[in-house]
């Protein structure tokens, strides 16, 4: 466990204004893995006829989660920025339910972190979205 880093990342991630606006809750954060929950909110609705949340909110959750996983990878010395992110929307998230994303930094080089992420609502067996992303890495000087 890299406790100092997790503490740093926790306070850093919690301070992000957009993360606060979305009410993001960090459930897990250590060793290149992050789990973050986004509660359902009327503000995030993309389809007013059905109450389904907008894909953009899921993108922000995925990006935040991927960045968090990169920050807490033992080989990354500092912060990170997203280089590229691709999201597949598998199905509509059920209205009224929170969406939880789990991101894992599965490979890291001196410059790049490779991340996979999955998001689900109350039914963990049927993901709502998957994502792959590349993030910058800061090496120790």
């Amino acid at each position, binding site marked *: 466990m890299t406790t100092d880093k997790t503490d740093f990342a926790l306070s850093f991630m919690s*301070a*992000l*204004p*957009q*993360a*606060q*606006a979305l009410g993001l809750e960090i459930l897990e954060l250590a060793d290149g893995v992050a789990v973050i929950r986004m509660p359902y909110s*009327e*503000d*995030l*609705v*993309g*389809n*007013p*006829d059905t109450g389904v*949340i*907008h*894909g*953009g*909110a899921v*993108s*922000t*959750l*995925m*990006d*935040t989660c991927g*960045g968090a996983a990169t920050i807490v990878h033992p080989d990354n010395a500092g*912060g990170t*920025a*997203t*280089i*590229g*992110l*691709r*999201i*597949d*929307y598998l199905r*509509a998230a059920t209205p009224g339910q929170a969406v939880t994303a789990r991101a894992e930094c599965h490979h890291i080089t001196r410059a790049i972190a490779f991340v996979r992420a999955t998001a689900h609502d109350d039914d963990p067996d049927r993901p709502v979205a998957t994502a792959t992303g590349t993030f910058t890495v800061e090496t120790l000087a």
Partner: protein
Amino acid sequence: MTRPAPEPMQVVKLRRDTALAALAGRVPYIRFLNITFDRRGDELTGVMHFDEKLIGNPQLPALHGGVTAAFLEVTSIICLSWALLWEDVESGALSRGDLERGALPRLPKTIDFSVDYLRAGLPRDAYARAQVTRSGRRYASVRAEAWQDNHARPIATSNAHLLMAPEG
């Protein structure tokens, strides 16, 4: 040969603006990000009005990458819907009354979305335009780019595939 007189400009403009307001104005998430659309003829430019809550990294400070992605996705969906709606708005098949009652086709759904981050988003307004690169019966491809002060220096570009809403 006689042609019907063209409609007065303000009638045409009012119908177009009503259609745009009906399309973008009723989506809560678009209001949450405070995105509006400027219209010149059929061309739309998304404007994401800066707000402190859009910040990701407060130390730089920079726009949250997810917010930039969301802005591009919103712009892609609205511009595609707008392109699909345009003929009916122009012909008057969709009247202003219909539009005000919310009689609009359903929005297309995003199948996948891919974003390239080119520069950090500065803490100020951002703009975006989308181009429908393919519009079929079932699927569409839409490209979009976002920029801030300088259009030649985009902050992000995106590619999206969307599923058209079934007709009727």
